[in-house]
């Protein structure tokens, strides 16, 4: 019976009844998916929204129970006093500076080494590549302590060199870019080489321009990592004026005052750039994550 109707339907494998059932299933499937996503979105956002709400409240409204979501009068003075009492501009500037230089340096170093591993030939290339990769398994604690010693020896403690230089090259970045470079068709480079181009010209004029998405991905990742970095700047920077935003706000936090509104205000400031960056660069971020997951 079903085989007759399947032929009548032009060779489809399922009968009408089955297809209707499947369509119904698809509906519930989608409902489940939307439900799960909504629940997840709510759970993910509520803490941040609560933080935002708290940052806009006056003192008496904070210690209300049951808690109030919408402050009856919006107070921005939590933000203004934060700026008044702490060197927020300096902290912001420091974070921006360290992040930008870090991203630029990382893109430069990693793209160069990725190009070497992907396209250039030299003895021991693959062994070296796996050696690079293996450093990803080293716990941060192992390198952190001697790095601190090295910073002290170089006199870089309490300077921004200590924040920027150790993060310039990364195995992750090299790995990501190398995987990408491998997908660029080598005919382009072969043609260029026949025309007499030198390697650095190929690198600059062919590889880099074609790698926009991959570079953007690495850039976004690096920026997030440097912007949010907490432990290392905490260890190497002592002067408040040189601190980056997370450390500075940790400092505000640490005064063990429970001025929650002000703390939340600081949080919102710190979160704003990452949120904006993420909204703009979302697909790069996702691509970067799935990229690392695929090849294992």
């Amino acid at each position, binding site marked *: 019976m079903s085989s007759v109707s399947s032929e009548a339907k032009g060779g489809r*494998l399922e009968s009408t009844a089955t297809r209707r059932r499947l369509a119904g299933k698809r509906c519930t*499937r*989608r409902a489940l*998916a939307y439900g*799960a996503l909504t629940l*997840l*979105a709510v*759970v*993910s*956002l509520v*803490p941040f929204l*609560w933080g935002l709400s*708290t940052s806009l409240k006056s003192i008496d409204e904070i210690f209300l*129970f*049951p*808690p109030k979501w919408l402050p009856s009068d919006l107070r921005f003075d939590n933000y203004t006093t934060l700026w008044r009492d702490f060197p927020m501009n300096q902290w912001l500037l420091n974070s921006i500076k360290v992040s930008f230089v870090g991203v630029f340096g990382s893109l430069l170093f990693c793209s*160069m*080494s990725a190009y070497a591993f992907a396209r250039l030939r030299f*003895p021991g*290339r693959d062994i070296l590549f796996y050696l*690079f990769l293996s*450093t990803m*398994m080293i*716990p*941060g*604690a*192992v*390198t952190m*302590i*001697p*790095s*601190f*010693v*090295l910073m*002290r020896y170089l006199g870089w403690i309490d300077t921004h060199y200590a924040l920027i230089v*150790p993060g*310039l*090259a990364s*195995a992750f970045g090299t790995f990501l870019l190398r995987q990408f470079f491998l997908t660029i068709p080598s005919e382009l480079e072969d043609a260029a080489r026949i025309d007499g181009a030198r390697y650095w010209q190929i690198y600059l004029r062919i590889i880099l321009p074609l790698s926009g998405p991959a570079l953007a991905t690495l850039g976004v990742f690096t920026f*997030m990592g440097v912007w*949010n970095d*907490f*432990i290392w700047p905490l*260890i190497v920077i002592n002067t408040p004026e040189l601190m980056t935003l*997370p450390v500075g*706000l940790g400092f505000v936090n640490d005064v063990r005052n429970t001025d929650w509104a002000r*703390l939340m205000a*600081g949080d919102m400031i710190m*979160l704003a750039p*990452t*949120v904006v*960056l993420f*909204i703009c660069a*979302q697909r790069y971020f*996702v691509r970067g*994550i*799935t990229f690392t*997951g*695929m090849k*294992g």
Partner: protein
Amino acid sequence: MRAGFWFLLPSAIHFLTFEFGMVFLSAYMSLTQWDLFTAPDFIGIKNYVELLDDRLFWISLRNTVYWVVLVFPTSIALPLALALAVNTKIKGMTIFRTAYFLPVVASMVAVAVIFRWLYNPDFGLLNWFLGLVGIEPVDWLQNRATVMPALAAMTVWKGLGWNMTLFLAGLQAIPYHLYEAARIDGARKWSQFWHITWPLLSPTTFFVSVMTVIGSFQVFDAIYLMTGGGPGRTTTVYGYYLWVQGFREFHMGYAAAMAWFLFAVIAALTYAQFRFLNKRVNYELG
């Protein structure tokens, strides 16, 4: 040939200095007693011996194992379940993704402050919410029984989006026709999962598993920012104790030894996973 050398040079110098060089320096330091202000004092493996006698070492180790037990299964099961639920054509995925990725990209400092307020026994949102269903308020961060789970929940919450994305990518790589064929053969949902999804997802699961183990054993930020190791020693995990020894007490050699011990543990666990789980990782069906 020479081009390769020049292109590699910056990264190579960087790696030699900050990765390999550090590994060796750290190994050397672990064999010394050094407080950075006086010259290092070579003492051989005494640090390692002292570790075994150190009560706090064992406490921190035990706390860390507890942490991993709390975080590891949840970090895999929950995102996987979510990815399975969500693996359909969805409109507006970008908006959802922005929402569930926010915890991932947010700074831990910001998240810690928010959660400290959320967990507040008198005015926190969580206790208010629980109060709505009739549960008594809990002092989440001061109560020794609840503090670790509370911190673990925050950590899992923060990492949900990341792992879920990985699982989603893995799920979407599974060819649909396999499910169709199975359905025609009469396979039920559970059977489809067990015989198609799970095996073909195993590379992703394996990757997530390895990375989660490596990460959760090194936990520090959450502890430092939320509880400072307390109440008492309840949340003193290995990473935190290491930091205390190195950067508060300036027992640099001792801390370096701790770091190497951690390295050994992580390497052993990673190797074990590669050895025993990798066998069951299928890259193709059949």
